[in-house]
Each structure stands twice: as structure tokens, then as C-alpha cells.
């Protein structure tokens, strides 16, 4: 064997030995990372358990549990932050072991962005949302879209908001589909397009999201983006109303009151108005008051009528304020009180020009009240 041959053989031998060590280290690396990822997954699960416990705790103390509203759940969750502190610690440990875990990134984002169990930090929260969003996690894409929409943690940018809503919507996230639909409906970040809005509302509505069902019903009722169709409108209002969505309960009440898409029925109108009214819908409170006032679908009852006008008036409904004023003026359902009558009349007049034209004691006003106030 010549010297150069020996050299070549030696180099080849060394090379083989090196690759052997290299292969071993590649295997060790894979196994170590696998272990770290498994451990991170454990922390993730543990953290989620704390969040879940928190949610159950809040659900038991929440008089109006609305499953679809994660925001409400978090708002309530602020009451006892200790469980979120535990969760945050778990997620932080997990992300140290696996910095690319989208779930961990997303939850760190949520806790930071909403200040749950940790000092609120919009910027840091949005950064984590982005990390997870770029890895394709729909919930993170949606939250990042929300951050852009509200300008919390990022510079407000409706085009970016629509971009991320779209990403999440395309992956089938109902909350993102409705938000993307709203973007089209209001032309925020995308060119206004009712047909597109209707399409995205429908996707979310078909997934059972009450907000979307109501909005789709509204598009059908008004013939925007779809061919006008009261039957379809009533169909979606009903679905949404049955999902305890107040606005839809009011709209469905209207459908019964006006016989739009359903057979006209004041009793059912009163039923749905009452549901919405009890949830605080001012429009429904006003409509329900009118039904009591007119004795439509319910026994005529001045006290009830005035009670609901009062509720609606307190929510700023101008028509209800006017009628509450009249009720005080004539002492219907409340003790007669000209001062109160004047006060509510003025409030109504501040909002609606037509009320400003009329004054108590005017023959016009008296005539108006007499015509609308059957003895």
C-alpha cells in the first residue's frame, strides 16, 4: 500500500467514524426533542385543565351561560385569577420545552392579551397570537384578526384584520366566518360586498352561531346580498332566537307581529318580545309595551305597558321615552307627574325631531295622544 493510498484509507475510516458519531447525535437530538415535546404537551394539558376548572367554576356562578361567547367567559373569569396564574405558569414551562407549540403560543397569547393570571400586555399577547397564527392555528388567526381590528397590541389595520379573519374562516372557524362576514358587510378591510357577507354569515349560521343566523336573517329580510325572502328570514331568526340571541328574538317577534314569513300572530310576537325584553333588548321592551298598550296578543294592561316603556326608555329608546312621558302626563300605569312627563318628553325630543314638533298642552299633541291612547 502506497503512502497516499494509506492516507486515503485513513481519511475514509475517520470519515466513517465521524458520520457514525454524527448519526448517533442526530438520533439523540431527535429523541431529546421528542421528549421535550412530550413534556411540553403535558404542561399544555395541565394548563388547559386549570383553564377548564376556571370555566366550570364561572359557569356555575354565571346566571346566563352563553356557550358561544368566550369573551363573556373570560370577563367572568377575572373574578378569581389564581387558576389562571397556575395555567400561565404551565404554559410558560411548556413553551420553553417546545417553543413551536401552537396551542401553547395561543394560550400564552390569550392570557397575556386579556391579562388573565398575568400582567396584561397587549403587545406580548399579540406577538404570541402571531406565532401560532403563522403556524395555521385558526383560533390564533381569529384573535390576531381581532387584535388588528381593535388595535390592541398591534397598529389598528382593518385590512390585516380581514386577512387573518379570512384565514381562520377558511379553516371553518365560525367566529371568524361571522367576523369576516361583518368585514364585507361594513366594507372594513375589504371592499363592501353584501353577497360575500351573506356567504360567510351562512357558513357560520350553518355551524349554529346565533349571531350569524340573526345577521343572515336580516339580509334575507332586507334583500341585501340575497334575494329578498321573508320565509328564509323567519327561518334564520327562529334558529337564532332559539339559541337565546336577544336581537333575533326581537326580530322574530317582529316577524310574527307583521306576519312576515310566518302567519301573523300577536300572542307569539308577545312571547318572543318578552324573551328579548327580559334579556334587555330596548326595541323588544318597546314593542312588548305597545302590545300591552293595544291589548294585542296579551290582555291590555297599562301597568305592564308603562313598565316596559320605562325599561326601554332607560335604555335610550326615543319612542319609549315619548310614550313614558305621555303615561306620566295622563297617569297611566304610573302616578300622574307632569315634571316626569316633561323630563321624558324632552329626552325623546333630543333624539327625534318628530317629537320636538309636539308639545304637551298643544292641541296637536293632545290629539296625538288621544288617538293613540284608547280609553
Amino acid at each position: 500500500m502506497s503512502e497516499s493510498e494509506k492516507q486515503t484509507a485513513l481519511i475514509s475510516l475517520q470519515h466513517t467514524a465521524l458520520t457514525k458519531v454524527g448519526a448517533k447525535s442526530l438520533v439523540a437530538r431527535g429523541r431529546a426533542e421528542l421528549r421535550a415535546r412530550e413534556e411540553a404537551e403535558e404542561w399544555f394539558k395541565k394548563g388547559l385543565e386549570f383553564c377548564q376548572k376556571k370555566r366550570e367554576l364561572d359557569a356555575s356562578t354565571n346566571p346566563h351561560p352563553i356557550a358561544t361567547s368566550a369573551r363573556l367567559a373570560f370577563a367572568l373569569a377575572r373574578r378569581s385569577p389564581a387558576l389562571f396564574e397556575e395555567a400561565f405558569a404551565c404554559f410558560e414551562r411548556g413553551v420553553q420545552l417546545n417553543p413551536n407549540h401552537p396551542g401553547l403560543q395561543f394560550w400564552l397569547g390569550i392570557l397575556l392579551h386579556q391579562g388573565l393570571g398575568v400582567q396584561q400586555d397587549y403587545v406580548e399577547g399579540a406577538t404570541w397570537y402571531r406565532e401560532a397564527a403563522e403556524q395555521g392555528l385558526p383560533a390564533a388567526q381569529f384573535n390576531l384578526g381581532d387584535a388588528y381590528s381593535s388595535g390592541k397590541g398591534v397598529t389598528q389595520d382593518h385590512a390585516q384584520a380581514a386577512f387573518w379573519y379570512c384565514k381562520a374562516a377558511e379553516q371553518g372557524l365560525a367566529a371568524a366566518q361571522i367576523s369576516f362576514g361583518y368585514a364585507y358587510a361594513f366594507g372594513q378591510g375589504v371592499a363592501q360586498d353584501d353577497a360575500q357577507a351573506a356567504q360567510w354569515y351562512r357558513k357560520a349560521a350553518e355551524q349554529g352561531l346565533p349571531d350569524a343566523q340573526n345577521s343572515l336573517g336580516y339580509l334575507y329580510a332586507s334583500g341585501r346580498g340575497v334575494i329578498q325572502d321573508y320565509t328564509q328570514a323567519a327561518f334564520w331568526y327562529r334558529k337564532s332566537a332559539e339559541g337565546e340571541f336577544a336581537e333575533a328574538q326581537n326580530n322574530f317577534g317582529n316577524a310574527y307581529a307583521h306576519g312576515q314569513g310566518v302567519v301573523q300572530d300577536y300572542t307569539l310576537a308577545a312571547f318572543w318580545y318578552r324573551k328579548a325584553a327580559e334579556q334587555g333588548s330596548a326595541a323588544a321592551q318597546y314593542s312588548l309595551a305597545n302590545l300591552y298598550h293595544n291589548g294585542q296578543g296579551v290582555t291590555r294592561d297599562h301597568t305592564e305597558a308603562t313598565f316596559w316603556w320605562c325599561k326601554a326608555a332607560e335604555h335610550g329608546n326615543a319612542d319609549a321615552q315619548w310614550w313614558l312621558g305621555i303615561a306620566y302626563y295622563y297617569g297611566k300605569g304610573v302616578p300622574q307627574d307632569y315634571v316626569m312627563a316633561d323630563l321624558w318628553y324632552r329626552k325623546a325630543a333630543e333624539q327625534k325631531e318628530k317629537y320636538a314638533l309636539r308639545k304637551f298642552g298643544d292641541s296637536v299633541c293632545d290629539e296625538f295622544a288621544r288617538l293613540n291612547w284608547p280609553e
Partner: protein
Amino acid sequence: MKTDLVRRLTPEEEELAAKREELARLEAQLADQELLLASLKAELAAFEGLYLRRVGALYAELDEWNARLAELRAEQAGTPEAKAEAAESRTQAEEAYSAAHGEAAEVQPFLPSPELKALYREAAKRVHPDTAIDEKDRARRERLMKEVNAAYAAGDEDALRRILAGLDSSPDAVQGSGIGADLIRVLRQLKQIRDRIAAIELEIANLSETDLAKLKAKADVAATEGHDLLEEMEASINVRVILIKHKVEEKSTSGASI
């Protein structure tokens, strides 16, 4: 008379016969153990090959992008620390590349046929170095055993048959002279085989503790549960490759604008 034809065995002869029986039993056991060890090694090598081709190659790609990013940073920052970091990243990328694309990565799946196993068992029994009668015999057997192991790992049935055929024609197992010498030799063989069986058990235990074996065990469990562990590992590295690629692109365009 019968007693003239069948001589009664002396105690030494009885002892020798019993030891030879034991030897035969142990030789069979040893062959089984050698088969187990050779199979384990071949399976691990095959898994390593698969791992390196699928996961190792991705690590090499990841390290390559890491090195590029470090080099871009060094170019833009120009500090000695950044340069040192870039050089280190480059070395790691090169090491990962040669490891992921070396010989070990070429090993193909190991799927031994029953025939291959039977041939190996037979060959192992007949050439095993620990049944050697002297040092010269031992050297010859060690060489043969290496060939047998290589043929088995390569799944080469013909090579095993050739080795077995060669044994038939070679002058094998020259008997020693005298019963005492025979007994001593058999006892020595017994000890050698027992030692070897214990050594194999230890080696199997050690092999099972390696990262490779642990990873393979995990992959096997995952497969029975209907998922592909290597695919999951690939996915996890792929995410990082994509993210770092993105950073490299950002860096190189921002560098260009300066």
C-alpha cells in the same frame, strides 16, 4: 456374547457424553441468542437508515438554514461574536449533513425470511468462535462468524449457503487424544459458550437502552396506535424550517436595502 460387544462406559466416558449433550443444547441456545442479537442490530441499523433519510435529512436542512441565517447576521453585524457564531453554525450544518447522508442512511429495511433465519442459526452453530478447540481454530471461526453476520444483515441467503458448504469440505474439529483431553476441551467450550450467552444478553440490554432503540420502540408503539412517529418528527422540524426560511428571506431583503 453381548457383553463382549457392548462395553460398559467408564465414569469418565459417561461424564463426557453428558457434557457433550449439554454442549449441544447450549450451542443451540447460543445460536438462538446470536440470531436475536444479529436481528436486533440489523433492525436498529435499518431503523437508523430510515430515521436519517427522513428526520436526519431534515435536521441537516434546518441546520443549513440556521447557518445561512447566522452568516447573514454576521455579514450585517460584522462583529467577531457574530462571525464566530456563524462559523460554528456552519460546522454544525456540515456535520449534520454528512451524518444524515452518510453510509448509515443507506441501510434499507430489514425483513428476514424464515429461511434466512434458519440458515443463520445453522451457520452460527457451526462456526461459532466460542466452540473453537484452539486459538488457530478460533481465529478462523471469528472470521467466518463476521461473514455470517454480514451476510445476515444484508439478507444474503446465498452467501450463508456458501459459507455452510465451505464448512463441509474443510477439515473440522480434529479430535484431541484421550478422554481426559476431550473432557477438558468440552468443559472449556461450555464455559466459553456460557460467557458468550451472558455477553449477548448484556449487549442486547445495552442496545435496548440506546437512543436509537428507545426511539424505535416509540415508533413501533405509535405504529400500533395507527400513527407515524417519524412523520410527526418531520412535521415538527418542517415548521422550524419554514419559520427560519422566512427569517432568512426577511434578512436577505433587509440586507439588500441597506
